[in-house]
């Protein structure tokens, strides 16, 4: 496959407040996030001529957001999708520039995931008609993401002896990280006992194994390495990307086992092949935490540990700040807020810049204490390479490797 390593960069990141009740439209949220990312990059509206966004019938369109900011577009596309779209759209942005269609793109996701279209499947989502392939699951009371994914985790417990206590460490780690993040919705640190003692949602998932529902918008700016040199921030180079890689039988992935295998099985060779590195070279990960176990499943599938040893890996301290390879240092979807993957890339961009927005007084200048006690620092020291593992569902995922 073609290799564009280090030819494209992420130069701007931005987001709105994470809330449970924005009292604003997704258009207003998107405009604020795109504006913030453009300003972060040190660019102006006339520098941006491409736009990509993703949604599932719950958001605004690029042809509204761009003109609100005075942006004239040479290329845009609104894409249907949820988790794992972030990395895929970064790859599409590179392709659009490579094809000569535009020069600099803003990628956004805007949602009132708490106050309008609840991500958990209640409200407007529960009222959607059941037809076509939905008939194979929805009439049996299997509709929400938790209900759709839980048998995958249960089978992993059966095949590999993985426990609820092991994956609870993902929530514990991410809550520790969120306690260093002024933006996070949930800043309180929790224990393994808090997680396994919380009420059942769909066994084997407890309440605290599940991510949040959040109102927010987020944005990333992609341009060429050449243009990145003139931007305000230290550029972050894209080493490799794999977008929406699927397992066979995406219509009904249960038909093709082992069902404990996730899409990273197919994506890892693409993304590591482009980047020319291996898991051992990665300093920070952003493994999508729709649930505690999704983080675990992806880390093991991409080779951060042996297949089946994800439970040991995530409970070993490796994924916590201060550990060898922290995961979702902003708190992730379990604690910071739910963004369909965008915030995990934003956080890794900031990690590679060295300017994570923690409680260190001079964080914006890149001065950090590396004191991971509550309410202090969440910057990883000398982070050079970061990797995002985007999740949509067990048979569908994306990946991104970046370096400073």
């Amino acid at each position: 496959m073609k290799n564009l390593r280090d030819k494209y960069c992420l130069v701007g990141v931005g987001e709105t407040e994470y809330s449970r009740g924005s009292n604003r439209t997704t258009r207003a949220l998107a405009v604020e996030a795109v504006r913030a990312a453009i300003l972060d990059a040190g660019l102006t509206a006339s520098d941006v001529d491409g736009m990509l966004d993703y949604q599932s019938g719950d958001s605004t369109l690029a042809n509204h957001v761009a003109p609100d900011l005075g942006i004239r577009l040479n290329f845009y596309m609104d894409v249907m999708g949820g988790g794992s779209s972030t990395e895929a759209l970064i790859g599409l942005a590179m392709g659009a520039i490579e094809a000569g269609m535009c020069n600099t793109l803003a990628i956004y996701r805007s949602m009132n995931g708490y106050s309008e279209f609840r991500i958990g499947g209640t409200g407007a989502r529960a009222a959607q008609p059941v037809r076509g392939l939905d008939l194979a699951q929805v009439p049996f009371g299997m509709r929400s993401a938790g209900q759709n994914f839980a048998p995958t985790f249960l089978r992993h417990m059966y095949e590999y002896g993985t426990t609820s206590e092991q994956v609870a460490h993902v929530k514990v780690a991410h809550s520790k990280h969120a306690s260093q993040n002024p933006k996070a919705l949930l800043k309180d640190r929790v224990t393994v006992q808090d997680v396994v003692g919380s009420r059942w949602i769909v066994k084997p998932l407890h309440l605290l194994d599940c991510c949040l529902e959040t109102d927010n918008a987020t944005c990333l700016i992609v341009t060429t390495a050449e243009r990145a040199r003139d931007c305000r921030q230290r550029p972050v180079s894209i080493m490799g990307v794999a977008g929406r890689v699927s397992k066979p039988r995406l219509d009904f992935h249960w038909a093709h086992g082992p069902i404990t295998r996730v899409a990273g099985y197919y994506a890892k060779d693409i993304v590591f092949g482009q980047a020319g590195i291996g898991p051992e070279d990665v300093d920070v990960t952003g493994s999508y935490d729709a649930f505690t176990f999704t983080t675990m499943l992806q880390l093991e599938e991409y080779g951060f540990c042996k297949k089946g040893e994800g439970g040991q890996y995530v409970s070993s301290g490796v994924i916590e700040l201060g550990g060898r390879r922290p995961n979702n240092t902003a708190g992730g979807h379990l604690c910071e807020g739910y963004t369909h993957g965008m915030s995990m890339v934003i956080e890794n961009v900031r990690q590679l810049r060295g300017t994570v927005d923690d409680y260190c007084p001079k964080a914006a200048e890149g001065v950090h204490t590396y004191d991971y006690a509550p309410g202090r620092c969440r910057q990883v020291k000398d982070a050079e390479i970061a990797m995002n593992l985007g999740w949509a569902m067990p048979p569908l995922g994306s990946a991104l490797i970046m370096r400073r």
Partner: protein
Amino acid sequence: MPQPVQYRGMSLIAHARAHRLVVRKCAACGLLRYPPTHACPWCMELRFTWQELSGRGTIYSYEIVHHAIQPGFKELTPYPVVLVELDEQRGRPTPDESLRIIANLLTPDLRPEAEEKVAIGTRVRVVFQDLADHMALPQFTLTDEPPQGRVWRLP
């Protein structure tokens, strides 16, 4: 209950109303597939016939829903959702593939089965839950057959 749109893909539901569990069988390579998709995923053949199955299988994985999302399921919690590996076509055409189906595990009188009775490896058979004159759901219930492989349930 509102009348669902009738089209050929609904045949599975219509067959279920006649208390028959059917899947599509490729007219070229003969492999069975579920759900009733529109081409053979192994050879791209469009033509198919409906094949009735024994309705016997083994629980491959499951979940117990305690917090229902759909309003109609709230009074049924906790209810088990099971992934059943059917006896026909196990491990074919590759060792990783099998004919599997999602349903609820029900008691013989069609109530949600008690969660302490649900386990991977347990043998089940199809039963039919009539919902209206024109439709029914294929569901599963426990049998007294010996289990297949290791029996395991959530501790």
